[in-house]
């Protein structure tokens, strides 16, 4: 029997299983045999789990039907035309000495990247690094991001091909930020990429690492990203995740962090693009005396759906965590915030604080906010709070009564609300650019 060229394309889980069959031989060819069983295990797990439904507690408020019913091709190769180059450049960081690695539709773009590192700092495509850093990579890759209950990490791992590899050696303190930029372009048909990043900061190292995802407007695609980040003993890492996907895009990403003893880690997340975006940040405070901080801002408009799931796993004594998430929702957009704090039985003297504040600019916008506290130790300080509100009308009137027009007054207040998070961005060019973007975004939406 020959397949008719008119058969409806496979969608959902089936398309990925079929694609894996086709792709696996190509993977096996690249001479890294140790990955093969990992990929097979991953596709097996994905096959078992499939796409989560809303009966799954972790996906209760995020409907994946639109994602599941679409066919996604392998990402097309593109030649870098002026439009793409200008678009990518508009996201590059202005800080001198910044190391920037750029991928276009999942493929490394050396023309747009600047990777001249020194003192053993390594920023390179993961596929390339596997050739000469095999041992280090093998020790960490797919060792931290668990597959159970995480179908999209499993899917990413099954199709693991390339992404960024960053290694900061012992005691190296970097001033200039490292930037991972993933650009998606428009194509004839929707496509999928599975960026996979491995970031390792050795003992006492310090770095700021930015991950940006951006898509040309109108581009329809699915970004399925996974990042594993290891913060070594007494290391200090700030991680920034900026999501500016195209308005038609699906973005599902997991960032898995492991903190060794006395390390410091801060995550700063901005989620504003995409039709449907979900960001999971899981931090394991594995060693004693760690500090972890999660700061997030989600900005939704139109029919966007933005989901933020965080997990702070206090697995050792005397760790502290601070979490502040804020959201601004306009139009018919919706968002989910689910912050889980888990304290293991021996993680005494844990100090955890969580807050989520959401500003609703329209009646049709909706937020589902849910703290989850799973505390199995007794000497623990843990506080959480959530609030949902509208623009404060008396503040709005106060501004207007001083001559400030309504639109400007609203923009000022929206900016003020977001500023608490943006202010914590310790990369100057980013902070300035984001402030402008926020004001523009909500002005454009006729707020």
């Amino acid at each position, binding site marked *: 029997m020959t397949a008719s060229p008119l058969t409806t394309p496979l969608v959902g889980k089936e398309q990925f299983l079929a694609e894996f069959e086709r792709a696996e031989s190509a993977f096996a060819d690249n001479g890294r045999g140790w990955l093969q069983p990992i990929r097979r295990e991953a596709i097996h797990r994905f096959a078992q789990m499939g796409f989560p439904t809303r009966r799954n507690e972790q996906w209760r408020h995020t409907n994946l039907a639109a994602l599941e019913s679409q066919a996604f091709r392998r990402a097309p190769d593109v030649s870098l035309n002026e439009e793409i180059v200008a678009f990518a450049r508009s996201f590059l960081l202005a800080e001198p000495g910044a190391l920037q690695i750029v991928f276009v539709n999942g493929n490394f773009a050396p023309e747009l990247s600047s990777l001249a590192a020194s003192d053993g700092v390594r920023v390179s495509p993961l596929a390339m690094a596997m050739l000469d850093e095999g041992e280090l990579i093998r020790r960490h890759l797919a060792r931290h991001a668990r597959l159970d209950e995480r179908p999209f990490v499993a899917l990413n791992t099954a199709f693991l091909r390339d992404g960024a590899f960053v290694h900061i050696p012992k005691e190296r303190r970097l001033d200039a930020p490292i930037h991972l930029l993933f650009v998606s372009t428009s194509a004839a048909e929707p496509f999928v990429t599975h960026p996979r990043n491995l970031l390792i900061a050795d003992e006492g190292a310090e770095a700021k690492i930015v991950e940006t995802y951006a898509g040309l407007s109108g581009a329809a695609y699915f970004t399925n990203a996974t990042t594993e980040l290891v913060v070594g003993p007494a290391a200090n890492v700030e991680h920034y995740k900026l999501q500016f996907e195209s308005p038609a895009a699906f973005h599902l990403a997991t960032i898995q962090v492991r903190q060794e003893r006395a390390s410091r880690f801060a995550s700063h997340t901005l989620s504003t693009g995409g039709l449907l975006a979900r960001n999971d940040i899981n931090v394991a405070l594995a060693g004693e005396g760690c500090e972890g901080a999660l700061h997030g801002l989600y900005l939704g408009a139109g029919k966007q759906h933005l989901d933020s799931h965080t997990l702070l796993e206090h697995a050792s004594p005397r760790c502290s965590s601070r979490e502040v998430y804020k959201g601004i929702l306009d139009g018919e957009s919706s968002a989910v915030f689910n912050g889980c704090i888990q304290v293991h039985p021996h993680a005494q003297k844990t100090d955890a604080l969580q807050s989520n504040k959401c500003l609703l600019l329209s009646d049709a916008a909706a937020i589902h906010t849910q703290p989850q506290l799973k505390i199995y130790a007794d000497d623990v300080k843990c506080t959480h709070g959530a609030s949902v509100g509208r623009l*404060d*009308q*008396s*503040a709005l*009137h*106060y*501004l*207007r*009564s*001083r*001559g*400030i*027009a*309504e639109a*400007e*007054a609203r923009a*000022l*207040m929206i*900016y*003020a*609300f977001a*500023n*608490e998070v943006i202010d914590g961005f310790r990369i100057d060019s980013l902070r300035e650019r984001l402030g402008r973007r926020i004001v523009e975004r909500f002005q454009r939406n006729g707020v």
Partner: protein
Amino acid sequence: MPLLEVKNLHVNVGGTEILKGVDLAVNEGEIHAIMGPNGSGKSTLAQTISGHPAFEVTDGDIVYGGESLLGKKPEERACAGIFLAFQYPVEIPGISNSLFMKSALNAIRRSRGLQELDAFEFLELIKEKANTVEMDEALLSRSVNSGFSGGEKKRNEILQMAVLEPRLGILDETDSGLDIDALRIVADGVNSLRAPHRAMIIVTHYQRLLNYIVPDFVHVLNGGRIVRSGGKELALELEEKGYSWLEEEALARS
């Protein structure tokens, strides 16, 4: 023609009629004091003039500079020169006091076809004005009124008035909760703005402020109406006798 003319003003708040026919005419160069018991509608009158959307005018009119204010937005009223020092200044976390005042001043300047002040020019101006109201410059970089003490909030209102230089300034209990020094500073601020083309309405409970800012007229608002108007002596009389004699008088009349 008066600068401000309030005519038979009826105002509803949340479905309840609070102002029940207020008449008031304020000419350029004059200072009017409005007194009256708690809940009599003084702030309602002030907020209605400023254009607060919660206050619904059901009858009557407010005419300013020959034009009705009804239907005008709060920002249009401010650009036309109306300034209200709030009884309860609003805290706005996340917006710095100086950005707030710069946005306000430049909005008003734009509306008058004047060049906007740049950051440097504004800084010069705001420092000078902060100095005249003896306000700590640290308060300029803090969020608007956030965590300000009661007195600092009131002083901040006067600073805004000094920066925006209105034609009609309305002070709603700016003297409440001030220590003696702050009271003098507020009074100096008002007096320095006193000019033939300006007018002020001072809402207060205390004769004390009127020793520093001598009013041309004193009005008593009670139950949503102006029940008595007079010269500055009226304030002294009220201080001595309270408001009950006015109510008794009104009862006797009816």
